[in-house]
């Protein structure tokens, strides 16, 4: 099994909607990969493409996790001191509540993991062409 298949097996453990977004994204990146590799000035090989799509998936999972957490957290921060919760239909999201702590912990651990593997910049902020360059050990633009 390649890294991409391994990744798909890993994300089988997350909720369906998130999983579909991540896997759908990887599929779309594969479609665009000839252009992305051309932009990076790197020849495509099956092994490099597999590694690239794996990191594209990790990057998408990180983006979804981080952005959704930030949006929820930001919506609570924007309330200032006037309120401490967002009421959406029947559910209530509390500032400092258990759900937000859990999500914050996930984002923190995800960021730590990326940093431990030297992936923070390329996964969190780089372009897809940068990911290709990174895999080739070439300087990221």
């Amino acid at each position, binding site marked *: 099994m390649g*890294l991409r298949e*391994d*990744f798909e097996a*890993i994300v089988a*453990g*997350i*909720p*369906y*909607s*998130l999983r579909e*977004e991540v896997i*759908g*994204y990887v599929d*779309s990146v594969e479609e665009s990969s000839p252009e992305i590799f051309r932009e990076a000035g790197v020849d495509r090989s099956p092994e490099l493409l597999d590694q690239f799509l*794996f*990191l594209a998936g*990790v990057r998408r999972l990180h*983006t979804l996790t*981080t*952005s*959704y*957490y*930030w*949006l*929820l*957290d930001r*919506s*609570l*921060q*924007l*309330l*200032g001191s*006037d*309120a*401490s*919760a*967002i*009421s*959406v*239909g029947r*559910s*209530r*999201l509390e500032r*400092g509540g258990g759900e937000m702590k*859990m*999500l*914050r*912990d*996930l*984002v*923190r*651990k*995800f*960021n730590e*993991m990326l940093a431990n*593997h030297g*992936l923070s910049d390329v996964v969190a*902020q780089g372009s897809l062409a940068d990911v290709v360059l*990174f895999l080739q*050990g070439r300087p990221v633009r």
Partner: protein
Amino acid sequence: MNLEAVRDAVADLVAQHKAAFTTLGRRETQALEIGALVLAVEHYRRVGFETRAVNLQQDAFKVKLSAKGYPSNFSWYEVSRGTQRYEIHANLPVRGATNHDKGVYVVDVGVAVAGAVPAVKKGRVAVANDNLVSFVEAKKLVIYPMLLAQFVGIVHEIKPKYLGGRAAVGRAHFYPALVSVGYLRGTSEDIVKGYKRRGYLVNVVPTFDERVVSMAHDPLAPSPFRPRARHGRPARPKLEVVSDDVPF
């Protein structure tokens, strides 16, 4: 680079935080609904407006989730800078731009002149078209050509001036926006590039969650919306460090 080690670390992360991912999945729709609202508020905050949550209920900001219900039964944001004051509402009903009918459209997020949203709770309530400044439509879809056509149709019915190459309002405001967690598919990218040549003043923001991450990294980064305002400073940057220590 040992990618097998990264794979194992990702597997551990997913296994150890299953409950958090479940929560994220459950809150995803809410994050999107709130997300468009937050992006609009952040746009104004980052060009120097003060922001304030209004009409709070039981210590909470009550989000209007659908077209149903009177705006005054829900919470909204007020943004102000000097004498300028606007309100940002979720699912805001607004009159169409034409006088030929009395059509009412509901935009996902609407920016209106302060005080222009009727406070009544009777009959069909809608903001007069002239009092709507701009709006955001949010989708959890890949941006395909027909979605773009639908969005341009909405702009045409509600704020056609933006398709005529001239903004209806001042520079602090953003052009009508389509934001999506999906990416541009097929010929969509080319269509969006064509909007500029056609003088369409609209924002199409694919994978807006990636733009959100950029904003999270940089409290002073502009919003993803055009036009990029060049004046003003964020009014309350201290908000950035209030809640937690997550190193974005």
